């Protein structure tokens, strides 16, 4: 009976916690609206399984570079050239011009959501890190 009680309590806490994560915990201040073109680019990113090699916020594959801020660190034209021509490690997927443009638009959308790796942050004595682009 005690075991059921502990399980039940944890389960209720899990539901409350999850609902916080789904709403206010992730209501980032820096969420730009997603255009239809960016949404198309997002689907292409998944259709070609780009995450197998690339990362966003350090999450994904390790064969290629992290793309979170590729637009602001390089440029849209630079990214488009790479996608169109491929590289020694990335094949040319033969994308149509509108697909390349959609992918760049998606990368532009991602770029506006935050900075990775964080450039402005503070490490507390407890080991906790506070980043400049965390929501207040």
């Amino acid at each position, binding site marked *: 009976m005690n075991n059921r009680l502990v399980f039940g309590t944890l389960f209720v806490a899990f539901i409350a916690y999850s609902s916080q994560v789904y709403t206010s915990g992730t209501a*980032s201040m820096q969420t730009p609206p997603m255009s239809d073109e960016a949404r198309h680019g997002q*689907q292409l990113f998944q259709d070609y399984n780009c995450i197998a090699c690339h990362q*966003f916020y350090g*999450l994904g594959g390790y064969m*290629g570079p992290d793309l979170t801020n590729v637009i602001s660190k390089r440029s849209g034209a630079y990214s488009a050239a790479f996608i169109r021509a491929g590289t020694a490690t990335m094949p040319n997927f033969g994308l149509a011009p509108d697909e390349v443009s959609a992918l760049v638009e998606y990368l532009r959308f991602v770029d506006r959501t935050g900075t990775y790796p964080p450039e402005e942050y503070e490490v507390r004595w407890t*080991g906790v890190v506070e980043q400049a682009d965390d929501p207040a």
Partner: protein
Amino acid sequence: MTNNEEHLGGIQFMRLGLLALAGGMLFGVIGGFQFLFPEFLQELLFTKTRPMHVSLVISSIFLIAIGGIYYYLPRQCNLPLFSAKAVSLHFWGFLITGLAIVGCYLSGRFGGREYFEFPPILSIPIFLTWILFGVNYFMTTRQDKKSWPVYYWMWGTGIVFFFITYTEAHLWLIPYFRDNMVREIMVQWKSYGALTGSWNMLVYGTALYLATRISGCEKYARSKMAFSLYFLGLFNLMFGWAHHTYLVPSDTWIRTFAYVVSMTELAIFGKIIWDWRGSLETWQKNAHCNAYRFLIAADIWVFVNLGLALIISVPAFNLFTHGTHITVAHAMGSTIGINMMVLLASVFFVIREELPNEVHASCSKTLRTGFWISNVSLAIFFVALILAGVGKGIYDGASFQEMMLGIRPFLLTFAVSGIALMIGMWIILWHGFRLLGLVRRNAVNSRCIEQSYPVSLQDDQKAFRPDSRGDLGAPIG
């Protein structure tokens, strides 16, 4: 299916799991070399080999763990399965869906998110077969009127939370999540963290079940320590995922809370196995020499991974380890070193129970060789990944290619030790696959004999069937 054959569904799952693992390791080795030499096997791009490797290895964890549950409940816990037909349906559903996913990957048809890259429509049969498994499990275990041992709790929790977290992994299909990059990435990794926790529940439940059976002492499975482990594991499963997303801009309380939750579950798990090992008599270790050997290997890997897990759980260290190969070392060290060693212990425990006369053959020199090749090469593999991760973490230049060149010697060591790891594991998997096949054949042959000689030989066979502790030829009549 007769009662005597109910456990064969479990054997089928285990054999398929061993095959999936053998295939997963092959794709892992191919992917490892493509990492270094992108022109290697260009027809099979890294975008295909990576999901093939990950999906096959994760499937093997589920298949072997599920196989164990389907075997142990009717064969050793005296709980006839609620529906043997559902086991068969589950198996074929798993196999057909798995083949469809493999077909999608190899033909380059993606569309899903990382780790579930297949078109999301294929998740429907996965949900349906899981519901079938869950209903069968709970309807079977409810026949046990006594208070549940901890492994029933762990298996049940793994089943329920797989369902919840797999659903959560598909929330990106809803625009409310998909259109907010931060929310989408946080929820995605929340689900992956808990999903790993759900299969850990199945695997750790199996480890505690084996510890109980090998020692012949039920007290471990009902001890306060075991239940403390279980609830800590559950706590971690629910709230301990956020070390994956420390660097995603989100509310600070999420990462602080995850940091506090940390990874205490592994320490207690290690302690239980450690205590259990000390309590075993020599004859018990010898009787289950293979299962015992794999459990001890898992125990050592628990301690190794615990150290690494604690380091990457501290946000200040995570700043440097996140997005590097150190995370891969942690994932692979846990998957192969802990999960696979426990599940191989389960496979060889079943073999010992069903084929007591084969025990010496299955303790053969080749199996021991496979064990040592796997563990030594895994250690080299693990260290090489950590060194590659340190190289990436401390690199402060702007060129990705320059960074990759700097860590190339470590990646080469990782790829070569991956081949050795695959060879070692294949030796073990071949033994397991072959002997489980023999278990199946024996059961089918015994049914033929029973049909030909309905009374006399049946009684003879029952009289010399090994009992649940696996004592050779112990008369039970």
